[in-house]
């Protein structure tokens, strides 16, 4: 398998330029083992996405009975099989399934579901159902188990304008926040190539010189290629989420050893006039995700990245009187990347066999976390989740 290190040391340099600039070869040299590490990208769909109108069980008689004003037309759906189809604005995600790059885990939730956005998000972010155990997030707890202090960049980076999500809180976790690509543009005519001497030395002066020149090289590289050039391989849609994902892609390409990235998308709380709102959001999610994965594929990095998109809960099966839906329970969750087993995972929840008007949960979300932690990031999950959870088989066996 082509590793990041090989990529930088060989193909990329040849492909980028006939003459290798000094700063790029410095970067290639600096690409250590940790830069080959696997990366998890989490997308938080805030507000409680209506899973029933996202992964639509059109073959279930209950669908037409419960959804009238906001029923999606069967012919418009992106069919996954003869029972289930994706929302019409999720064509890009349909293509990802066909291309073997998207898994949908169905009926994900937790016991005794809480319908408060705040509380349910706390549960998802901390991976703990106990209220006194929310001081750390599941990613924070995961890194807390690793040897510390750790060299290199932050363990996790949140891209966005809100405060750091609880998911990344830890006792020994270094999580950073970054807002925009402006953070990566340099406003000075700096030199990008220094004298070659000392490039290999480990003393602090050489280290600083190498780091500074490499950073300025990266800035020059990004400026030279421009936003369009950096993403030539994948045209990102002009949406907020796509901008976040594009920035994450740039950070991954820069190679800083960060293993978890976090992005978020808000406004899934569709109590009224749900149809246009959800269509826009799912289009943003679907288009952004595909552009991101295509971009990474073109950069030869797609085997290193898995994306998970989740929402804090689904919505009630029956629509309300405002052409919307109220807070519910179990919902589908998305896992994307070259490493996934594509298609539907788990049982499609029945719209007939309900629990007080809500879908029955069939897969505990902590089983998804267990898979991502143990099989993808290779970090033991038991301490993180506060118990042993059987990992859901989301990833290909060869991973």
């Amino acid at each position: 398998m082509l590793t990041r290190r090989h990529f930088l040391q060989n193909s990329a340099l040849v492909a980028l330029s006939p003459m290798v600039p000094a700063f790029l070869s410095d970067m290639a040299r600096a690409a250590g083992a940790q830069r080959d590490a696997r990366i998890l990208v989490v997308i938080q769909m805030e507000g409680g996405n209506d899973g029933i109108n996202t992964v639509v069980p059109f073959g279930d008689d209950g669908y037409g009975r419960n959804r009238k004003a906001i029923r999606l037309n069967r012919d418009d759906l992106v069919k996954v099989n003869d029972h289930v189809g994706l929302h019409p604005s999720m064509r890009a995600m349909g293509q990802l399934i066909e291309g073997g790059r998207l898994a949908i885990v169905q009926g994900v939730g937790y016991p005794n579901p809480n319908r408060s956005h705040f509380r349910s998000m706390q549960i998802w972010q901390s991976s703990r159902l106990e209220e006194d155990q929310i001081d750390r997030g599941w990613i924070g707890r995961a890194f807390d188990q690793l040897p510390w202090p750790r060299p290199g960049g932050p363990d996790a980076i949140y891209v966005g304008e809100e405060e750091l999500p609880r998911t990344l809180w830890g006792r020994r976790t270094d999580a950073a926040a970054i807002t925009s690509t402006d953070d990566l543009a340099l406003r000075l005519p700096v030199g990008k190539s220094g004298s070659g001497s000392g490039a290999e030395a480990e003393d602090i002066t050489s280290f600083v010189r190498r780091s500074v020149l490499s950073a300025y090289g990266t800035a020059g590289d990004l400026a030279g290629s421009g936003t369009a050039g950096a993403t030539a391989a994948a045209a990102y849609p002009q949406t907020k989420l796509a901008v976040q994902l594009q920035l994450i892609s740039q950070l991954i390409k820069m190679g800083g050893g960060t293993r978890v990235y976090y992005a978020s998308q808000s406004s899934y709380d569709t109590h009224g006039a749900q149809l246009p709102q959800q269509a826009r959001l799912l289009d943003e999610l679907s288009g952004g995700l595909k552009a991101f994965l295509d971009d990474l594929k073109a950069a030869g990095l797609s085997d290193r990245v898995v994306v998970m998109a989740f929402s804090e809960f689904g919505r009630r099966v029956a629509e309300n009187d405002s052409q919307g839906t109220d807070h519910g329970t179990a919902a589908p969750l998305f896992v994307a990347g070259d490493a996934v087993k594509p298609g539907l995972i788990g049982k499609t929840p029945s719209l007939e066999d309900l629990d007080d008007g809500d879908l029955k949960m069939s897969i505990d979300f902590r089983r998804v976390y267990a898979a991502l932690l143990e099989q993808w990031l290779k970090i033991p999950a038991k301490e993180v989740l506060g118990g042993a959870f059987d990992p859901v088989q989301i990833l290909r066996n060869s991973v």
Partner: protein
Amino acid sequence: MQSVPINSTAPAPDMWEPYEPGGQSLWDVRRVVHLHRRAGFAATWSEIQRDLKDGPQAGVTRLIKGGARVEGTIENFEQTADEIGEAAVLSDNPDRLKAWWIFRMLFSPDPLGERLALMWHNHFATSNLKLRDLVLMRRQNDLFRTFARAPFAKLLGAVMHDPAILIWLDAPSNVKGKPNENLAREVMELFTLGVGNYSERDIKEAARALTGWSVAGAGFARQADAHDDGQKQILGRKGLFDGDDLLNILLEHPACPRRLAWRICSEFMGEGMAEGPALDQLAAGLRSHELDVGWAVQTVLRSKLFFSDANIGTKIIGPVEFVTGPAHALELFDPPPSTLVLSEWVERLGLSLFYPPNVGGWTGGRGWLTTRAIIARGNYAAALARGELSVSDSPPDLRGMARHAGRDANLRDGIAFFNELLLGGRIGPRGLDDIRVRAGRPGAPDADPLTIAVALILASPEAQLG
């Protein structure tokens, strides 16, 4: 075989013998700038000249006594700072509390005091992410300042009896029969002993001793009914210990002075400069001086080791110093820079005051120089030189400063002057030539090439080290 007699009574060489100028180690601009970049927030040209004239010990004494600044201080500084701090707390806006601290760093007559407060913020790293209470964050911060140079027992006692750390480390949920070990673990691992100097059993027992320490209203509270008053065994000692007994046991433990010595050296000494015997000796000194932090800081700053060539330019300048230092050295006093803007820059460089990344604080050192942070450092240098930090966009009068220092204001001499002022002359002739060529290149957006030159000096690899 001849045996070499070992003279066990010969005293080990004093690793911290005081520095005296002479021979190869002259008291020059390079060393004065080194002192102020390490122990304060850089110095203006006249502060440098003053220290050059008065000698190293006088320069260090001024820092220790809290009067190192002659320029850019504000009349009734403490009163003004308090008003800003009060307003920040009332606004409940963390950005304003950050700006308050930046204000203190920029304008306090006691830069070393603020450096030490920052060191303790890192040592007792508490985050407002969990507290969400600016009153408590500020109160804890004031403790770091008040007891910055005190015997460590006073600082530790004050911080541990203050709500911020208790809430941060879950003291209220540490009750008899249902211990929460968070506070017990961190007080041993991070605040006093360091990892490897206690067992898991010690932590369990220490947590029992700490039961009943809680918060009521906005103050410290002892809850007798939550306290486990049974016998405990901690670090080989047995007794009916409570939290105060625990602190005394930790303060008397030999690992405590060593951890303190490590903390002080990592703040003031370059990478790899104080290990082994130097650290041991400083720890021994701390022990015989009742863990007097002021004594230790003074010993370090006065030492030959501190002023040695090997120690100059071997520490990566942290975000706070990188931002505030040049603002002071370039005399951005009137109009003053916006402290809100400066604090945003500090954040872009990777440090959010009152929001340490975790209980272990900022790792610092090489970790500061991520790609993003380096680019942010370069952009900060550009913003500073162009005068974009104050509300009225006033660039510093660079040529005036050079002339005032008796230098020619042409580009070449100007670059040489600012290399001395800002970096103690660390950039060599080739680097200076390169800066001159780049700054003088036609088509640059700035009217004055000296502006670009100063930005390039501050963005150079040499400027990242102090």
